[in-house]
Every structure is written in C-alpha cells, then in structure tokens.
C-alpha cells in the first residue's frame, strides 16, 4: 500500500497540541495508524512539544515533591494493556468508536446504495461519519462550510482533483465543491470529518439534509 495523499503540517501540529475537534483528531489518528510517514512527522511534532516544554519553567509549591511521592505511594498498579484487536478495514482508533470491526458498523441508507454511519464525537463544531459508496456510484455533489477530511479505508474514489485509495486523505476547505465517485470494482468506505455541515448543491439532497444529519 503506497499512500500518496498525506496530512498537512498544520493539521499534524494542531493534533500534537491537542487543538482540534474530536472528529478531526479521529481522522488523523486513523491516518497515522496506516501511514508510517505521517506517524514519523507526527512524532517530530511531539518532539517540538518537548522542546517547547523545556523552554520555560516556574516555581513549584513547597513540599510538592513529597506530595507527589505520597500520591504515588497511594496509587494502584497500572492495568495490563488491552489485547490488540485487528480489522482489515478499520484501524484501531476507529474500532473504538464503532465498537468492533467493519461488520459492526450500523449503516443507514442515504439512497442510491450510498450508506452512512454517524460516529459519536463530543464536539459541536465538527462531525465524523463513515460513508459507504457502492462501486461506480457517486456521492451527491456537495460543498462545505469549513474544513473536511476524507480518509479512504477501502476501495478508492476519484473527484475532480485526483484519485484517493486506502490510506489516502483528502483535505478540502470551504472553497472545494466536489463530486467523489467510487471506482469500479469494490465499494469505497471512507471516514469523513466535517466542520460545520455539508451543503448540497442540488435541491433534493438539501431538503433531505436535516433528516440525514449531514
């Protein structure tokens, strides 16, 4: 698997600083699970955080170390790490949200064979969902109010800009209006995080929007 479309520095730095909505954090965590190159870049941004932390200091309260040692004395041992679960489509961070592998996804039909599953994330400003697009089918034409990240988990899609296959991430801002089409052969499954809500350009999907929560 050769990943061609990667995360931007801006997003990786914001992820390192924990400054993104949960929906975007999830897409980045999923991408890093599949992309060694971005994982290495992400670790470099953590190292930059280490350098920032080294840069300034202040006074601790009196008796701080003793308080801390007393706290350590009262702690129980850490639990053993959970057994690793594996899925051929969903990387581990995504399995936590779905509650299992790709077979556990609770799809809802969107029409024309397209299905989606909204994932429960804590923030108001952004949402995450899985999309299932049958081979050869297209997503409704849409633009968005803000940033949208689309990570391919299975199959591939093309839009006006390029081709995106498993592991690739498409970063689209509000100016992008695109019509992704799944390639022939295999259904395309994507993880999509969207800031604000999607704006469909055709009349009918726009009417359906509140109903389907996209």
């Amino acid at each position: 698997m050769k990943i061609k479309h990667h995360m931007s520095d801006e997003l990786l730095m914001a992820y390192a600083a924990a400054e993104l909505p949960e929906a975007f954090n999830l897409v980045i965590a999923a991408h890093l699970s599949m992309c060694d190159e971005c994982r290495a870049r992400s670790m470099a941004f953590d190292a930059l955080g280490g350098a920032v932390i080294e840069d300034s200091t202040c006074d601790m309260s009196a008796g701080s170390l003793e308080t801390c040692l007393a706290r350590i004395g009262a702690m129980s041992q850490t639990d053993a790490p959970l057994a690793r679960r594996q899925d051929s489509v969903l990387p581990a961070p995504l399995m936590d949200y779905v509650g299992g592998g790709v077979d556990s996804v609770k799809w809802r039909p969107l029409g024309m064979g397209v299905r989606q599953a909204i994932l429960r994330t804590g923030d108001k400003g952004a949402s995450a969902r899985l999309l299932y697009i049958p081979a050869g089918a297209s997503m409704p034409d849409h633009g968005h109010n803000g940033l949208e990240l689309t990570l391919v988990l299975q199959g591939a899609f093309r839009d006006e800009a390029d081709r995106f296959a498993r592991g690739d991430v498409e970063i689209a801002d509000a100016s992008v209006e695109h019509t992704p089409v799944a390639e022939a052969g295999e259904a395309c499954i994507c993880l999509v995080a969207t800031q604000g809500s999607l704006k469909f350009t055709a009349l009918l999907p726009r009417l359906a929007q509140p109903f389907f929560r996209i």
Partner: protein
Amino acid sequence: MFDAIAPQKAYATVNPRLYAAGDRCMTPKKGNLRLTADAEQIDWSALVFRVRDDQDKVAFAALFRHFAPRVKAFLMKSGASEALAEECAQDVMATLWQKARLFDAERASVATWVFTIARNRRIDALRKSRRPEPEELPWGPEPEPDQAEVLEAQQETERLGTALAQLPLKQRVLIERAYFGDLSHSEIAAETGLPLGTIKSRIRLALERLRHQMDVKATDK
C-alpha cells in the same frame, strides 16, 4: 502590533545546562547519573529506567525537579490557574512513575514523553476535545534499548530546542502559542490584528527553518 502580545507572559527561562548541573550536584549517587561527555547533559532516560526498574526515588526526585516546574509553566501558559497547574504537574510526574515501563527511549526523549503526558492531562483538566491515539506499533519499548538511539532521541530534542531559540521572535512566539493552545489561529488573528494568512505563513516559515536547522545539524554530525 503582534509583538505586543509577547511581554504579557513572562518567560522564566532557565539555561538547561545550569539547571542540569544543579541536579547533578543534588543527586550524588554512585555515578550512575550518566553524563554524555560531549553535551554535559543529564541522561534523563537512564533516570526513568531507574524509576522503572528500582522504583528509585532519588532518580525520580531529579526528574521531578527538572520536569515538574516545566510542566507547570506549560499548563499555566495553556490557561490553567496556578493551583490547577501545580496539581496537574504532580499528576503528570506521578504518571511518569506509574507508566515508566511504557517509555520508549529509542523513539522519544524524556522531554517529548513528558510533553505527551502533560498534553493528555491538559485535555482532561481544561475539558478539551477527546484525542484518540494512533494504533500502537506492533513492537513496544525494548527493555534494553540501543544506547545510540536513546542518545539520538535526546539530542534531537536538544537540537530542536536550540533551533527553536534561534527562530525570529515573531515566529517562535507563534509556535509556542500553538503548543500552549491558549488561542486558536483565528483568535490570535483577532487579538493581534494580523490576517489569518500571515499567521499561517509565519508558522510555515518557522517550521521550514526548524527543518532546515535539523537537517544541517544532522549532516554535521
């Protein structure tokens, strides 16, 4: 206009070398605070291993004296009150003790690892968005890590620190503020009157410069 924001936060910067020398004097224990000959720096990883293997409180005290005040300063700059920052810094250090066996010295310096613990503590304390972690790599930390790799990870953080300090002030302040997470880009834009595009391009320039510095120094070795 943007420079006006810098002095609001007093940066009590301590020369890490002086600080390290102080720690060394305070922990005279059979020479196993190993120093690297060229850098005159404490091998923080070795101290974490002593905490991991021997629950060594002297080693922990040295780590605490160095990192706890830095974590506290980081959290205060992130918007925590002094009392909250103090408590969280203690939590972070207690987590370091508790999770010492998860520290992978070949992949990260102690400073980097402490940063990641502090970041996660800040998410809880300041009710930030949940931040899922990537899938763990199939290999965990080595019980006997390769010393060259360990040294490399620590030196990388030190080189990054030097490169960060050498950035033009305007760029460095933006990078640091991004990590303190006290303001989003658009809030910084509103506060400073700088267009969002200028902030983004300044951060981009800073990252390019850091990358360049790291490349130059890596080939110098």
